């Protein structure tokens, strides 16, 4: 036998075996990667956001800002209390509302409303916002995140379902419309 080992019958078979395993590996990898990416793929197919009711308008007196909570539309029984998401509802006047995410636009800590001074304050890094959600001071680079809302049959509805973060596309959209009344 003068041929090199890899051209021998045994060498070829070993190569074939490796290629076969590689192919099986790819066949296995595709569903596994898809499984791992499911949080992302699910967002693209179904979308996480949906319209949710925050309750009757009577809960939100005109001129005041109240804490409301909703159950996240995508939730499992094992989520427990974490499926409950709070938000701040400001009843501007008539059917004009502003619904702010609880999360500070800096790094997401829960902002608290102080009606006496008309400010939202964040307990983490010191972000402060005015009553209309615009930035007053501190590290945030923008105002509070706002949910889209609509009033239907005497109930206030918002479009929600994702934790709002600075980098998300919705946050960027909201940023553009900030200051103007949302078109809902």
């Amino acid at each position: 036998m003068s041929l090199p080992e890899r051209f021998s019958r045994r060498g070829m078979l070993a190569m074939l075996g490796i290629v076969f395993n590689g192919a099986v590996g790819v066949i296995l990898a595709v569903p596994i990667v898809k499984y791992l990416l499911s949080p992302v793929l699910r967002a693209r197919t179904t979308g996480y956001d949906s319209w949710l009711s925050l309750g009757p308008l009577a809960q939100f007196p005109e001129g005041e800002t109240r804490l409301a909570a909703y159950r996240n539309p995508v939730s499992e029984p094992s989520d427990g209390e974490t499926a409950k998401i709070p938000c701040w509802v400001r009843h501007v006047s008539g059917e004009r509302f502003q619904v702010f995410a609880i999360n500070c636009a800096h790094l997401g800590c829960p902002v608290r409303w102080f009606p006496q001074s008309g400010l939202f304050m964040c307990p983490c890094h010191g972000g402060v916002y005015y009553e209309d959600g615009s930035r007053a001071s501190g590290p945030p680079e923008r105002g509070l995140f706002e949910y889209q809302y609509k009033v239907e049959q005497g109930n206030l509805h918002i479009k929600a379902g994702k934790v709002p973060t600075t980098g998300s596309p919705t946050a960027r959209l909201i940023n553009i419309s900030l200051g103007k009344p949302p078109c809902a």
Partner: protein
Amino acid sequence: MRLISKVGDWFEARLQIGKPIRDTMQHPVPRQTASWAYVFGSAALTVFILQIVTGILLALLYVPSASEAWNSLQILNHQVALGWFVRALHGWGSNFMLAIVLIHMAQVFLFGAYKFPRELTWIVGVLLLLFTLGMAFTGQVLRFDQDAYWGLGIGASISSRIPVLGPWIVNLLLGGPIIAGATLSRFFALHVFVIPGLLIAFVGVHLLLVLKLGINEWPMPGRIVRRATYMKEYHELVHKDGIPFVPGAIVKDIFFSGFVLLAIAVCAVYFGPFGPSGQPDPTIIQTVPRPDYFFLWLYAVLSLLPPSMETPALLIGPVIVLGVLLALPFFSGEGEKSWKRRPIAVLTILLVAVALGTFTHLAGYAPWSPVMDAWSGDPIPAQYLRGRTALERQGALVFQAKQCHNCHALGGSGGDRGPKLDQVAVELTEDQLIRQVIQGGGNMPAYGKNLSPAETTALVAFLETLHPAALAPARDASRAAQ
């Protein structure tokens, strides 16, 4: 005894590991490395083993479900016999492990141990530091209390700033659109399977490299590392002036590991377990989230960075730090090892230590955060109200009611977000005070919309009284004639 040796022989005939173990234990090491400076690596390994053992013990009762995790920790703390102690051991073990790993890293850096031929040992060590930090963060998440919940929110906010991929990464990190059951499950998988697996594998490589390449010799000023000659010199040193690792060098390791375990146990008994703080119900917003000790410096940095620099610093900073650490043995692989001839190395360690220490200290009292309940919890000191007019006292009331106290300290109580106001009348004139209150500025919100003219008048009248008896309040020179 004969039976024991017979059983031993039976196993040895099959396993044949007696000689390799003996050789490993008795491999010669430089005499001077039998030093208290060389005990931190073995101590880190000891604490790691403690973490594995206590971690398994906790996993017997911990429930990795968002609806149950917090309750299962309460049961561990209060109902299971000594459950609190195992939790405390694991929590304090985590703090000790990070501290020892950092000291170990500083020591091998100062001793030039990362230089040829131990570059890979250093690189694996840097990865081990990352995994240890990963364990600390994921462990904090498994405590699944309010701090964990909002800490995850901060992690998500930071990840979301990664260009293009940010929102996807947030979903992958959280396992869905919000922080919920899937989030805890994946952090459980990371903390219990993925990162410990990586740690065990890389600790194995780290130890193998130490054995293969020999422990770094005690650096002597003037003994220069050269790729061409180092191996020969090291072998000569070890054979001329070496001692067997066991029992020559291991004694101090054993004692130090014992001390560390004892210290962890003492801390666990004395201070008890960490948390859990409030239950992870996001609708309970009366919370002041704080990270665990070893991430406090990061919390301070995030508060103090100018907003425009924050995203670049968060996204590029870690890459630069990691890049420098990984590249270090390649651009400084030869030359002087002794810290006595490497002033920049010593200064670097000092700078990093002072910076981390300062940030951690600052984060301890977080002067950048408003004290959310100062307006209702910290009364105005009596000496600022005694003998004041009705208008001035009304101003003090406005000061409390409008939450000024959350950011401004009076008589040592209240927030540090804004300046202390005990002497504000000396610093600002009446007109300046009015302008500052109404228009804000310099990081203060404008209160113009939320103060009536009467309230502003009263508030400024009160602020005008805030000056030491010996110092007159500031006056506008142009009004002096009036």
